[in-house]
């Protein structure tokens, strides 16, 4: 019984982690940007969907779409306000740009977080679920929403795989992640590729945020932990490796679920963080990293 419970519960939460980390790792792989406003964008999307349902009285689907739009808008805002000016600046040394972008996105994330707290208070909020009720699955009473969450996550990840591997644009993105200079030599504008990547990122982060809001609920306090969890999953899987992030998301998701069930819910996150430390010692490039 407890075995099936862990299997079922761990699957949905891991799928959510995977989706959240995918966008994060994609941005890093293509443009070398570690976006520390990740958690803020996810929370903003969820709060946007919550506010749309509460203030505009729209249905759950429309609310979710509005939330995704908020996520994409914020992703573009992050790119145009904080990342691009630093990337293009002539006054910041090339070698220091990474740390500048890191700091800028962190501060941007705090600005977004505080704005959410100011406008909507720091109370936790939940997004109106699209599917309601529970089903019995392998003897476990499971909210239908968990299946919905897992399905949407994997559909989004599958769509991303198709985009990257089967479309012209996607192949250019993939090429840029391997060798940006080579791509420019082929006559493809890097800035166009960046825009594509940030749009895809906003979409993924928005969907992940809304699913999280439906599944567990979010507040402005969730911003830091969400960024941290995406960051540690991506580092564990290997920075820039999408497949590595997916596997790492499942490792972390199941490790947390196992801990919560078998030891205590109070220690939920500790073993995954210990694993991260061990991996950093033994294999600093991460489980599947290239760099």
């Amino acid at each position, binding site marked *: 019984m407890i075995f099936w419970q862990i299997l079922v519960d761990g699957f949905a939460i891991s799928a959510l982690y995977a989706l959240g980390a995918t966008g994060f790792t994609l941005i890093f792989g293509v443009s070398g940007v570690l976006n520390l406003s990740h958690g803020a964008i996810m929370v903003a999307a969820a709060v946007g969907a919550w506010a749309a349902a509460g203030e505009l009285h729209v249905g759950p689907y429309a609310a979710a779409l509005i939330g995704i739009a908020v996520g994409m808008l914020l992703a573009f805002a992050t790119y145009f306000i904080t990342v691009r000016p630093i990337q293009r600046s002539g006054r910041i040394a090339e070698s220091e740009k990474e740390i500048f972008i890191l700091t800028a996105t962190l501060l941007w994330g705090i600005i977004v977080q505080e704005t959410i707290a100011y406008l909507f208070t720091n*109370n936790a909020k939940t997004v109106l679920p699209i599917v309601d009720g529970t089903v019995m699955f392998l003897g476990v009473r499971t909210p239908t929403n968990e299946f919905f969450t897992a399905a949407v996550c994997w559909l989004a990840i599958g769509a991303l795989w198709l985009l990257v591997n089967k479309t012209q644009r996607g192949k250019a993105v993939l090429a840029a992640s391997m060798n940006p200079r080579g791509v420019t030599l082929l006559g493809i504008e890097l800035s166009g590729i960046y825009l594509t990547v940030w749009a895809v990122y906003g979409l993924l982060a928005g969907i992940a945020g809304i699913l999280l809001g439906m599944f567990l609920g979010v507040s402005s306090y969730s911003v830091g932990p969400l960024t941290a969890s995406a960051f540690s999953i991506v580092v564990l899987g290997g920075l820039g490796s999408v497949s590595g992030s997916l596997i790492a998301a499942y490792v972390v998701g199941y490790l947390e679920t196992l801990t919560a*069930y078998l030891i205590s819910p109070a220690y939920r996150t500790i073993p995954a963080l210990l694993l991260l430390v061990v991996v950093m010692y033994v294999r600093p490039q991460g489980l599947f990293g290239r760099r």
Partner: protein
Amino acid sequence: MRSNFLNVSAGVLVACGALSGTAALAADPIKIGVIAEAQAVAGSSIAPAAQLAAEEINTKGGIDGRKVEIVVYDNHSSSAESVRAFQRAVSEDKVNAVIASYVSEVVLALEPWAARLKTVMITPGAASDVITQNIAKDYDANKYTFHGYLTSSALSGLVCDAAKDLLVDPLKMKTAVIVSEDAAWTTPLDAGYEKCLPKAGLKVLDHVRFSPDTTDFTPIFNKIEALKPDVMITGISHVGTQPTVQWKSQQVPIPMFGISSQATNSTFWKDTNGATQGVLFNAVSGPGVAVTPKTLPFVAAYQKKYGNSPAYSGYTAYDEVYMIAEAVKRAGSTDSEKLVAAMEKTDYVGTIGRIEFLPKGDPHVHGLRTGPGYITGLMLQWQDGKQVNMWPKQLAGGDMKFPPFVKLPAH
């Protein structure tokens, strides 16, 4: 010669004191400092409610001709800023008493300052038992602090009383699991629950404490469900929305009953998309519940003036201004020593019940007296978007209703 000089100077001093005393009585306002959290849902009602009370007192002519003046300090939820505000209030703005904060950590930081600066301080919303324990430990130093809200251990007692009347007697419930967040205020609360639940007729099967930053409650609910208790007795404040929503989405068949601070907010229904249907929670006030004849007129006046409903600490802050004003009247002075003695004689029917402070010698000296005839608290339940009072019986506004997935013991 020497004694003669002393006599003369003493006489001059007395004369000066008398002079300034009469001058003060005629003109000087009674100044009350309010140090509170302006941006937090729970703290934002404290200053407006105090202001309202002061205006009411002043329109009726003040206290012995003296107006009541409220001086407001926003502490941005920070203990350090609160301490600075307290120092400024006492030494620069010359306040006679201070109403401070709903956060236990803030009040605990101010308590030694109330002692050092010998200034009466009362909190409208903090719950930690340590506040009154400090007074009991060193009464002479800490006697300036008064606890104007319920302590955690008092809260546990009220929840147990309500559990007996609402769960054990009519629904024949026999077993419970305590579920609480791991925080300072829940330690005395849980100890209280462990002691009083069996007396109320509920056997405690287990005690689940979880980290306040928990987001996924599935394992916690599954663990509790496996124990098959009749009810979950809660102690939550930092979390609220998330366990409530997951309780509903996972259709956990056990009712939730106890302290859930976030559920007292009027926005909780919206925050949880209605998942809070059927949740029972303790409060000192509720919409439309006339705890005393003063409750509803206060709410109406507050809504008329500010356009929204007061949080729980608004009720107590409003009462505290009246209590301080009456104590000044009884003492005939704003001298701190006399004010403490007069505050200790408080017997005041406010918006949340009849208020008396526990006497010196009690382990919770300067805490509120609770129980029948004093403050009993309420047990509210969220029903179809509204908070409806269930307990005590004479103030009940309806019957308990649970969502269909909750299974009550067969009887």
